[in-house]
């Protein structure tokens, strides 16, 4: 497929988040909870514009840290949907965004 022109490229932001909980959370659980939370807060229509993506190979199970890629204009909305998550698989959790950057290397 032909690549998009540079002027049409969308600006993205990478959000580095941390999970605070007693037990370790697996990536499959956080992915499911993240999609549920963001869909219910933003709605399918807005989320389709935001194009969020939880980057699988950047999730550190030891440190419980991960990275979400999202369109720049929706970074605040995705942060808001993350703080609305109270539980993951019946485990009490708190999510916080530690860093936001336009570049994955600068996180």
């Amino acid at each position, binding site marked *: 497929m032909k690549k998009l022109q540079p002027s049409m490229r969308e600006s993205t932001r990478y959000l580095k988040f941390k999970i605070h909980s007693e037990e370790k959370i697996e990536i499959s659980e956080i992915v499911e909870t993240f999609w549920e939370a963001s869909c*219910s807060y933003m709605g399918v229509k807005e989320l389709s514009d935001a194009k969020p993506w939880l980057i699988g190979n950047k999730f550190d199970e030891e440190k419980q840290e991960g990275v979400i890629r999202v369109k720049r204009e929706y970074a605040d909305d995705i942060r*808001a949907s993350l*703080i609305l998550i*109270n539980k993951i698989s019946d485990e009490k959790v*708190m999510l*916080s965004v530690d860093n936001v950057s336009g570049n994955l290397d600068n996180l």
Partner: protein
Amino acid sequence: MDYIDPCVENPGNEILEKAQEIGWKDPTTYNSKILKADDWGELKRKISKFRDNYTLLIFSGGNEKLNRKAVSDTRIDILLHPEKGRKDSGFDEPMAKKASKNNVALGLDFSEMPESQKKRVHLLSKWRKNLRLCEKHNTPFLITTNPREKYDLRAPRDLKAFIDSLDYNGAKALKKSQEIVQKNEEKLNEGEE
């Protein structure tokens, strides 16, 4: 910048540690009191009793008459969750004007966020209405996590992003508690001298 969560009353060690880890100022450097009352007489007595001993005096809203009395009293710093237990938002234009005149801030309580999606929608629409009134009448407002345990806490910048996502000024909401604490600390120190 120091971010202050105004409703951290008598925190345990776990809450203290977690709060500082995620970016809040050490809650032991200021003290706050949340007042609950069933009638105006009781509230007046409690205000007189606690005002000179606490940096932040917060009234737990919900009763319309007491909400109205609270915003008319300059000794109260924050009217917390005026919409609690109500079908309406608990805050109207005359209250917003009085609160602006008496410098009483409207407190959005994040711990009141329910699990049910339908109830979340109702709460957020009440918040939006109250924030619209605050913006129109230049009434101060702030957001707090009011934590009972460490997992109730939320990072200050995430709360700012939450208010920004509702299309209101999140930075203003975060700054307000620090301004109130600074002002009251100066007053209390003058009183001691």
